[in-house]
């Protein structure tokens, strides 16, 4: 392996610094050494040619490595769905260089030994940077706080019982109070379990037609409203996972105007699909929260554009056929998303909904800031985590070619634009598309 890397002549977009132009990017020993406008780059590379690997990036997009603050890697416990290694490969194939992984494994990541196990598995995989999220409560039971100080020491960067909602408001209050001095956010999966009980899709006209029990938007909104009040009460940091309703967008917008310490994410699938997609009873459209109506999709798109929602996160949730190729009511919630996320958002750029620079921010600096991560920027001296994308290259999503161990993608069969060509972590090309 050569010690230095030159990515030459690509269109570099780095929303953190506001850079957007044709640049040469020099990498040395895993760090960004220099970023120089291609037109004015007079660096003499002949003297170091033997040591220098050159990637010709003309016509390609050169981005800070993408950041995903919401994935499920299923290890330990559900390795038949996904392992840390297969999830890391899926992330690399999707252009992600830093991903956060949720705590709902078996055993739950509610103690430092599980955290250290995940970190060791990530190191063995040696691909992308994997940062564990610790559970809020022991066993996700919503009753006893995890040892958050120790979880942080072991490497957890946030806390969440994601997959289920923290049902007890008094317990949520304690979690926010206890986590606040640690400076780490509590990620809320907002779903009132009584209101959503038995529901398997959005409650509305489509659920009535399909004869499926619905989940009202209020199931999400009441918990978001509660957690906003609790953030005010405690001064804790709340991050709202997978916003799906217009009501939640409005609640967060108002909270941010009031100065509440709150951030939020939305998934690609909640940005592009509505509950109309369920009419064929394809369980690859069954997820939690459920796909909502066109009005909700409009609201989350606007919320993302105007900064109410900070970032896009995949909620990558691998499930095998035994959880998905079964009757609707018993099928598991969730879809894989790492490998299709950027392309799905670029589809919205093609439609004129968002700009390219906006979506780059939603995948880089914005999620990094929401979780206080040193990632998502191209800055001299920082880690050389870089993603190269060919915007004009079409590709078709096929179960056979997805890197994830699970194939439960709602995009199967779709032809998408924007193909990840190279993913670089600490100056090493870990993925070639």
């Amino acid at each position, binding site marked *: 392996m050569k010690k230095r890397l030159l990515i030459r002549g690509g269109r570099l977009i780095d929303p953190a610094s506001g850079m957007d132009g044709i640049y040469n990017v020099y990498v040395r020993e895993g760090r960004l050494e220099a970023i120089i406008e291609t037109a004015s780059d007079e660096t003499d590379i002949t003297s170091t040619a033997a040591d220098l690997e050159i990637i010709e990036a003309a016509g390609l997009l050169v981005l800070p490595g993408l950041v995903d603050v919401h994935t499920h890697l299923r290890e330990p416990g559900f390795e038949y769905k996904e392992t840390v290694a297969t999830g890391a490969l899926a992330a690399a194939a999707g252009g992600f260089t830093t991903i956060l992984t949720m705590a709902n494994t078996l055993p739950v990541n509610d103690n430092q030994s599980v955290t250290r196990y995940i970190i060791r598995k990530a190191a063995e995989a040696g691909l992308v940077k994997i940062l564990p999220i610790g559970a809020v409560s022991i066993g996700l039971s919503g009753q006893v706080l995890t040892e958050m100080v120790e979880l942080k020491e072991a490497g957890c960067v946030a806390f969440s019982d994601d997959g289920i909602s923290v049902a007890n408001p008094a317990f949520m209050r304690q979690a926010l109070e206890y986590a606040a001095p640690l400076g780490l956010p509590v990620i809320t999966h907002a779903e009132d379990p009584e209101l959503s009980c038995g529901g398997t899709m959005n409650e509305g006209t489509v659920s*009535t037609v399909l004869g499926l029990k619905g989940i009202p938007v209020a199931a999400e909104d009441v918990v978001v409203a509660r957690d906003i009040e609790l953030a005010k009460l405690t001064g804790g940091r709340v991050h709202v996972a997978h916003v799906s309703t217009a009501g939640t967008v409005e609640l967060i917008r108002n909270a941010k105007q009031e100065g509440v310490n709150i951030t939020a994410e939305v998934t690609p699938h909640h940005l592009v699909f509505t509950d109309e997609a369920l009419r064929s009873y394809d369980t690859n459209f069954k997820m939690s929260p459920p796909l909502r109506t066109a009005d909700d999709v409009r609201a989350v798109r606007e919320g993302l554009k105007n900064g109410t929602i900070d970032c896009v996160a995949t909620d990558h949730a691998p499930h095998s056929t035994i959880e998905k190729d079964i009757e609707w009511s018993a099928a598991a919630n969730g879809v894989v998303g790492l490998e299709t996320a950027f392309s799905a958002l670029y589809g919205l750029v093609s439609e004129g909904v968002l700009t390219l620079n906006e979506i780059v921010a939603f995948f880089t600096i914005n999620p990094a800031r929401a979780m206080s991560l040193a990632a998502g920027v191209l800055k001299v001296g920082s880690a050389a985590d870089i993603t190269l994308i060919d915007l004009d290259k079409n590709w078709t999503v096929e179960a056979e070619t997805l890197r994830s161990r699970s194939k439960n993608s709602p995009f199967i069969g779709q032809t998408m634009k924007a193909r990840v060509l190279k993913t670089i972590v600490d100056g090493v090309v870990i993925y070639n598309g």
Partner: protein
Amino acid sequence: MRLDRKDLLTIKDLSLDEIGLILDTAASFKEVSEKDIKKVPTLRGRTIINLFYEPSTRTRTSFEIAAKRMSSDAINISLAASSVKKGETLSDTARNLEAMRPDCIVVRHGSAGTPQMLARHLSCSVVNAGDGAHEHPTQALLDLFTVKEHKKHIKDLKIAIIGDITHSRVARSNIYAFTKLGARVTAAGPRTMLPPGLSSLGCEVTTDPREAIKNADVVMMLRIQSERQNNSAIPSAREYARVYGLDKEKLSLAAKDAIVMHPGPINRGVEITPEVADGTKSLILEQVTNGVAVRMAVFYLLLGPVREED
């Protein structure tokens, strides 16, 4: 004559012509059940599997009798467990059934959409015998048939459907069926039993049963399923019976020659009083009789010989 489709899954997707063909065919098969020898050889050598994931007596028996009166071989499979509990996917289930070379699989499942999912994997015909709260197409067809026998036409009739619409596949299929044929359908029940967007199915919606029954030509009552009442959709069977149950007084608001229907099994004294259920306007048992004829017609039109054009 055959239906130009592999499966019968919903009323929603049936055309007017298809519904007309099924009803006309059922009329000719009804005679078979009235004869001493209740059998025609039409489907000899055909295999029909009744795959029931939900307990059912009358629907399963009706399909079985229909299959046998057509001389096909009918096999009943009753499964309490869902595929997931057996560690089997729906594709596995479909492939295993297909390996036995059936000509038709009749599916009832508690989860909406399962017949559709199975039909995608199966090359044989699939008939939906009720999926969750989605559809129960043969019930709606036999209800159409029964009303047509008595009223001669469906167009412009006023139909009241009263009860727990939210959980009723019979209601959904009947709303589609009767509105397609030009009837005016009003669905009524407590707000907690009326799902959102119900009017998008093509019916009027009211919480006042009297409004629905007023001048109705057909009053269709739905079963109140006591096992579903743990979600407190209604305060008590007593109040339900009083406000929504069909009694003589409410029935007197209907058209003079109104008929009363119920998909069964009835909860006497809850959604319908015994005197109305057993009264002269009640067609509840005729519905059961007609169910066999309609299901014979469905089997014939999906599996029977394709008639040569002359």
